[in-house]
């Protein structure tokens, strides 16, 4: 191969040639993506990745998630690791074991290559930690002003073991609702950086891959009814989805819901409700009542579920309302979010 000057990752910027299909694009893929994501599938340099499946794997699962978060870097993470965790978690919430990821990048002309490199290194680290390689990808460049730095879409493929059948339709009145830890950290961490807000907080995004926790949970309680990660719309959206799919109501207890003091304080200040704030490293689980304590113990024994709690139960309600018993003993509804609470959080 003839010599080409290495990409200037210190001061260089994305330009239209990085997406044109020419030499510059090939160089970017080679020196950035293949170098950091590094695996045999990528090195094969095919248009797609061919991979083997584990023997006796049961069903396959595929999930996709686009990431348009602003700002790109935030306390506790960045769009890179977020884009890995987001899709790994979507696969995990089906009860699946995530195996491979694909990543599509839409880059804006003028975006600093140093930032892109930082994001790619973060993705590579997250993928490595999760044990889920990024095996294929795509890069496009749009003109300045037609994107917002970088958008990343990731798609994940995994397998669901035979016998595992998670679906919200399986939820029955009497089932218990569990969350894996403190709610609202991600949304508040993002909010703290908005240019027109900038308040100081020690809160970091909870962005994390949850498939390890899910595997441990399913191992202990294969009869889990359903799992969801409460991202946009928060816990409230997940509970309303559950209620709608299952045709029953949900009752949660305000006292039992884990929210950090600093998150509660920030929400108070901003007029937000932590129940509606996004999470990127938490899950909501529903299981039969008799399994709830055992499931809780397994979750608490796992690093991602240390602060897990039983927060309520499914109840008989033809209207499918989600209600909360307040600390006063009164009841109020926990409705779907209307309008938008926070723009571009994931």
């Amino acid at each position, binding site marked *: 191969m003839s010599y080409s000057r290495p990409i200037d990752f210190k001061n260089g910027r994305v330009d239209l040639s990085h997406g044109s299909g020419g030499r510059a694009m090939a160089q970017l893929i080679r020196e950035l993506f293949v170098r950091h994501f590094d695996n045999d599938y990528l090195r094969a340099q095919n248009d797609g990745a061919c991979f083997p499946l584990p023997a006796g794997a049961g069903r396959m699962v595929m999930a996709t998630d686009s990431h348009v978060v602003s700002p790109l870097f935030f306390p506790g993470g960045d769009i890179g690791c977020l884009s890995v965790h987001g899709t790994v978690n979507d696969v995990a919430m089906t009860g699946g074991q995530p195996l491979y990821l694909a990543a599509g990048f839409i880059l804006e002309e003028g975006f600093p290559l140093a930032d892109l490199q930082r994001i790619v290194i973060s993705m590579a680290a997250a993928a490595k930690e999760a044990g889920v390689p990024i095996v294929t990808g795509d890069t496009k460049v749009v003109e300045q002003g037609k994107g917002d730095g970088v958008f990343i879409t990731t798609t994940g493929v995994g397998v669901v073991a035979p016998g595992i059948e998670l679906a919200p339709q399986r939820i029955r009145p009497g089932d218990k609702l569990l969350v894996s830890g403190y709610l609202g950290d991600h949304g508040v961490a993002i909010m703290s950086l908005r240019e027109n807000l900038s308040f100081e907080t020690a809160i970091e995004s909870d962005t994390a891959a949850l498939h390890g926790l899910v595997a441990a949970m399913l191992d202990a309680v294969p009869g889990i009814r359903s799992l969801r990660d409460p991202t946009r719309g928060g816990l409230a959206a997940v509970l309303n989805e559950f209620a709608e799919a299952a045709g029953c109501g949900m009752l949660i207890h305000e006292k039992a819901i884990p929210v950090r*003091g600093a998150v509660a304080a920030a929400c*108070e200040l901003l007029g937000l409700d932590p129940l509606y704030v996004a999470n990127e490293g938490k899950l909501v689980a529903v299981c039969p009542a008799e399994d709830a304590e055992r499931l809780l113990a397994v979750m608490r024994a796992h690093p991602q579920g240390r602060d897990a709690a039983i927060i309520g139960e499914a109840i008989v309600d033809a209207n499918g309302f989600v209600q909360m018993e307040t600390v*006063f*003993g009164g009841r*109020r509804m926990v409705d779907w979010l209307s309008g938008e609470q926070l723009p571009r959080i994931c």
Partner: protein
Amino acid sequence: MKYIDEFRNGNVARGLAAAIAAEVQPGRSYRLMEFCGGHTHAISRYGLLDLLPPAVQMIHGPGCPVCVLPIGRIDSAIDLAREQGVILCTYADTLRVPASGGLSLLRAKAQGADVRMVYSCDDALRIAQDNPAREVVFFAIGFETTTPMTAAIIKQAAALDLKNFSVFCNHVLTPAAMVHIMESEGDPAAVALDGFVGPAHVSTVIGSGPYEGFAQHYKKPVVISGFEPLDVLQSVLMLVRQINEGRALVENQFTRAVTREGNRKAQALVAEVFELREMFDWRGLGEVPLSALKIKEAFVAFDAETRYSIAYRQVPDAKACECAAILRGHKHPRDCKVFGTACTPDQPIGACMVSSEGACAAHYTYGRHKEASASEVKA
């Protein structure tokens, strides 16, 4: 959480509720209007009605800033953004208020108008400084709570000699609206209200003094109340006691923030920049004399109404909408035919369904399960 949990303590709440129940006299009803949307929100969000005896009825008042903004004013703001091409800055709730022609500021924004949501009017000033080639208008709404900040940025704009910044002033006054509610039937004796839960944040600015003449003249007790659930319960108890004893005084439950005099500095700032409007059209209340503020002649360079020759045009509310009666406390959201059907927080018809402080939105979001169970019982 310090200073929050103390005011949301369930045991204390149950104690207060028991005290209210013990004070309520048999055969007597207590119709209390909470003026502010902040109280309406707290009552709904914490399920306080569940704790009150049936004899105590809470009537939602008009104290929700976006709810009382008439359609004509929103239309003018949309015109500013669309026709005049200004950068229009405003607070979030205002964006979703329905205007004429199926528009709202949010929809105008989607169609290309430059409408920006700000958390503080200070941000609007900064946007003007950052965009010297563009005209920037701050669409100012709200009661006395937000008025001093608007006054401050007008003074700041004057000090900076900013040529591209102006304010479309829609600030309104609480005491005038309370008087209007008492006079709306033609005869104050016909107004079925026994007392008022008085404003929290408004009163931090104006003090508790301005309500004294009101309480004395109309013989209605007023208790200035904080926005936390325990504040509201304690204020209800204080009102019930006053009513039982035949007193009609201004009492201050919110002593941690409100004094009789209020915030003198803020009052001086407001007096320097604003003067009374002879007449202002309120949604729900109609034209109320001396109930709003306009920018003084000395600061006319920053008055968008003058700069863009904005002429107010009265626009009637949607026919099916009961916002007007709800804002005056004559009807409950459930009495409105479109409540929860054609009118929801996602597709609001009336302004009371827009802000979380609006009576309809609060009831829809937190309380409509009660309507469902009531209709089941009936069926």
